[in-house]
């Protein structure tokens, strides 16, 4: 995966709480190969029910602003694929589903936390339209709808997003220590050795 440090593009608002992984992509689409692209499944049912849905009107959106507990629900990584394949690179919300946020960072999507009051102000400003946005991972600063914002970003997440690393890339950097630990662990806990 390619990393990124700074993006510029359009931002839209999704003024909902608890936008869960089942809404982000209904399970029935998950047997489709990723190579076909998941962007068309993003918020599929909501977009199908409402032709004027904000994502139907702004397919070029790269930044999403939403309410608390965005991405709640399951470990469904396809929810992140749908956002990424649609073109979204950053979601701003007061809080995120934990597992979703981890999946997001593994796939180059920034889950950026902002205080609730700032999110509410942004939602009011953007409304049902769109606006200009600029997000900088290296400084933790963003400008959305003319608002200058500082978002919280874990240093490890920053490193992963900038370099395009996922958990396996990070873990593989400690291969020697892991091998040594494994050997020592099995010596001290022989009962846990897999029986062949």
């Amino acid at each position: 995966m390619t990393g990124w440090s700074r993006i510029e593009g359009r931002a839209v608002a999704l003024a909902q709480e608890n936008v869960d992984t089942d809404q982000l992509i209904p399970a029935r689409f998950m047997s489709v190969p990723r190579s076909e692209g998941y962007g068309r499944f993003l918020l599929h049912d909501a977009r199908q029910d409402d032709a004027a849905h904000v994502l139907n009107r702004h397919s070029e959106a790269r930044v999403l602003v939403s309410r608390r507990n965005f991405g709640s629900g399951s470990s469904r990584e396809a929810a992140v694929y749908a956002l990424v394949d649609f073109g979204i690179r950053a979601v701003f919300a007061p809080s995120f589903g934990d597992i979703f946020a981890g999946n997001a960072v593994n796939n180059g999507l920034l889950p950026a936390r902002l205080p609730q009051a700032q999110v509410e102000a942004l939602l009011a400003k953007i409304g049902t339209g769109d606006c200009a946005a600029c997000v900088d991972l290296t400084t933790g600063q963003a400008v959305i709808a003319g608002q200058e914002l500082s978002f919280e970003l874990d240093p490890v997440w920053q490193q992963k997003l900038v370099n395009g690393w996922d958990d396996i890339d990070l873990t593989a950097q400690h291969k020697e220590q892991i091998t040594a630990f494994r050997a020592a662990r099995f010596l001290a806990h022989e009962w846990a050795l897999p029986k062949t």
Partner: protein
Amino acid sequence: MRITITGALGAGVTAKDLALHWIAKLGADGARGHAIEYAGEAVRGLSIEGRLTLCNLSIEGGGRLGLVAPDQVTFDYLKGRNFAPKGAAWDAAVADWKLLHSDPDAGFDREVAVDAAPIAPTVTWGTSPEEALPITARVPDPATMSGGKQAQARAALDYMGLEAGMPLESVAVDQVFIGSCTNGRIEDLRLAAKVLAGRQAKVPGLVSPGSAQVKKQAEAEGLAQIFTRAGLEWADAGCSMCVGMNGDLVEAGKRCASSTNRNFKGRQGRGARTHLMSPAMVAAAALTGHLADVRPYLEGRS
């Protein structure tokens, strides 16, 4: 984060009710950023199956994971199982596992205490697991809520086809589902079968055991027969109707009493209306055709 559950759960009240209760109290993001250790008398009193249900639902409260320190109940459950260490290796394993508890002076980022005694069988009325209430309650009025909650509740009631103020027990269901990783274990099936034995379901439903092993065991114990005699379909193990997989769908606008973990919009099928509850409560809904308190149906059944 530690959630300490004091006291004991009442008769007919299960780990599922306990989980929905604390999630309703703390919110679907109440445990966000935390791994949860469940502790306290009520947790010690749960079987491994019950503890697995409780830990499984940690995600619905926003947690990363849930765990219960191993104790004699854990060791008794594991002993003799497939892949469990045997002989001297068993003793060594138990000695290691006995160390896997929090120190008495351990610090937690967050501590929450919950009293088990007043918890009633609990059902969800909305489209988030936090939208849960005792079965004895009424559908809440969004007008009494604040800010984002109010909009969420209005949207939920609209999707669920419910009116504020109606008693939860008056909500008629079209079908039922017992199964899933949350509540498809042998004890879940035993409890649901206890409610259904010798009785007839008023609505159709599906029972999907949690694994092929559970399926075999349930058939050997005669549980499968109780379900089919009650009018429910006995299916293979799988995610099934929990997530609308393999053709096990709830149709748009239909209402399902479900022992699963997520009542999100469209989870069981497009436009499907899901009410989460314990397998015993699902059995009660099957018998009556509406959301119902299971406790009277367990009376006199040991």
